[in-house]
């Protein structure tokens, strides 16, 4: 029997099972999106596969009733943990009117849901970073006990907005958690051609904050790091940079062919560390999960995904006139 690590982190068996279920839900939603895309029903998929442990582990370490998340486009695990439902994600995939992200205006993966403090993002990578810093500054000025959590890829850590945002947060000791989901590829360009430093977390020193690298395939490792960062932030000790290292198990998107730039052996090797499998094994080895329970969870998740797909497929599109709304504030006359 392996060591029970979750109890040491203060996590109950129920909580780690809930984490596992969110990871599995994220994976199954993503897999369904690919099927829908390949059968011509939805236009685009950009995957979370391989990064669910980092996403769910981090989200569970936050206060999901008051913290703000500014996810990047792979963060299905973050948003389902923060209250976005499978149905809502499917509505986005089908670009239907009820999509809470943008009413079908944005590409799938551009998450946003005001009621759950999931802040809308956009396609140029890393733009969400200074937004997270602004929200943290607002929280500090208003004396609110909130932390902002912002994610991005390792390629994105080269963007000016990462550095400008991290610097401001460092100077003003703001409660921001910068989490890089290092999946080793920025579309086709491997990390060795992206960064001159060894680790993304090495960049923290330039902004006066701790930088730590954790195993992104292990939700408990990520949970521990994010929990500590959130506690630091709430104590007024400033931001933290966390690098969660995992691997992108799919092509960049449904429009990408990764066989051009990476070897099948490399992907096969990464799949042996698939966090859905390894975390499931951990839960069984610690006696939290058994085959019956696993089957129940799988059934429940598949039912949720099936119902979400059917609902979204049959939901109406936005009326074309909607395309003319919300450019200017209408209560002030608009244009």
């Amino acid at each position, binding site marked *: 029997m392996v060591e029970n690590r979750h109890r040491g982190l203060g996590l109950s068996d129920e909580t780690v099972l809930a984490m596992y279920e969110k990871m599995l839900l994220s994976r199954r939603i993503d897999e369904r999106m690919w099927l829908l895309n390949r059968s011509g029903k939805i236009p685009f998929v950009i995957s979370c596969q391989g990064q669910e442990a980092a996403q769910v582990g981090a989200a569970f370490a936050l206060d999901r009733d008051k913290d703000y998340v500014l996810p990047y486009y792979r963060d299905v695990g973050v948003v389902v943990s923060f209250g976005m439902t499978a149905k809502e994600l499917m509505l986005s995939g089908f670009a239907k009117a009820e999509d809470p992200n943008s009413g079908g205006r944005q590409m799938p993966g551009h998450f946003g849901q005001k009621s759950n403090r999931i802040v809308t993002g956009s396609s140029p990578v890393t733009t969400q970073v200074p937004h997270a810093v602004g929200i943290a500054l607002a929280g500090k000025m208003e004396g609110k006990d909130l932390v902002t959590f912002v994610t991005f890829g390792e390629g994105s850590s080269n963007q000016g907005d990462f550095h400008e945002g991290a610097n401001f947060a460092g100077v003003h000791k703001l409660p921001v958690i910068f989490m890089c989901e290092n999946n080793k590829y920025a579309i086709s360009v491997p990390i060795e051609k992206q960064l001159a430093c060894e680790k993304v977390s090495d960049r923290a020193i330039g902004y006066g904050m701790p930088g730590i690298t954790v195993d992104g395939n292990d939700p408990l490792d990520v949970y521990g790091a994010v929990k500590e960062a959130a506690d630091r932030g709430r104590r007024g000790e400033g931001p933290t940079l966390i690098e969660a290292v995992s691997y992108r198990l799919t092509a960049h998107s449904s429009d990408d062919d990764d066989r051009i730039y990476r070897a099948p052996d490399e992907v096969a090797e990464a799949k042996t560390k698939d966090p859905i499998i390894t975390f499931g094994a951990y839960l069984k080895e610690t006696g939290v999960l058994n085959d019956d329970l696993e089957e129940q969870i799988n059934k429940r998740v598949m039912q949720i995904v099936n119902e979400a797909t059917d609902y979204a497929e049959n939901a109406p599109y936005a009326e074309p006139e909607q395309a003319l709304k919300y*450019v200017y504030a209408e209560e002030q006359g608009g244009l």
Partner: protein
Amino acid sequence: MAQMTMVQAINDALRNELKNDPNVLLFGEDVGVNGGVFRVTDGLQKEFGEDKVFDTPLAESGIGGLAIGLSLQGFRPVPEIQFFGFVFEVMDSIAGQMSRMRYRSGGRYNMPVTVRSPFGGGVHTPELHSDSLEGLMAQTPGLKVVIPSSPYDAKGLLISSIRDNDPVIFLEHLKLYRAFREEVPEEEYTIPLGKAAVKREGSDLSIITYGAMVHESLKAAEELEKEGHSVEVIDLRTIMPLDVDTIIASVEKTGRAIVVQEAQRQAGIANHVVSEIMERAVLSLEAPVLRVAAADTIYPFSQAESIWLPNYKDVIETAKKVLNF
């Protein structure tokens, strides 16, 4: 009433809004202790504290992104971009993010940001310190673009801009900062966005203009008056949304129009104004609508700027072509 320069009038408007609304925040490079490189925010940090008026690190995109994050939480940020030529560094925040946040969220967020920035030529500053880039902003749906031509308008328009729930680009012409003083009420007042001002009434020709060119156009109108031409001068004040009704009413009355801008012919708002006149008032026209604008080059070295910038003589020359058509 006090006599104020545009710098003082803007400072007065900012003070008014900092007092009026606890959500108003001023920040940017050197706006705090230094009071801004043009002294526009002089004394405001001392009066309102470092939480309300603060210096940022030297990083424009970060300033724009910060403003967005603060707006999402209900603040009314008034960031300063030190020179408007530096807007390219923060273009994504302005044109890619704050202008689109309401649309992409289906109306769930306002972006009540007012980006203040000095711009314009005639004071011997080099390129990127003098550029007239307002056309880039006006071509971005979701933004409003305000350009005052006088201290009185600057105060009233800035207060309206800060209270507006849309992102406003508020452009302050460098040459007008201290060009003249005029009476500006010390109490608050607003001037609605999207409303042009008829600065001078006339019946033979409409000059449609904004910013520093309002003064060149008024000077040209006086000269033309001496030769018996009655010239109307319209100061757009807000170039987006454009006050098309005022433009068209004037053109229908005079039958002749020119558009005067400091920006290059390919830039600015003149082409848009001409299109609106063509679409709505072509049958009222007695002559083609002509433009007075700078040459399609990069803003030149300062020794050449007095030749490059349009002036009242250029306005008179073009006006006569239209009047004598």
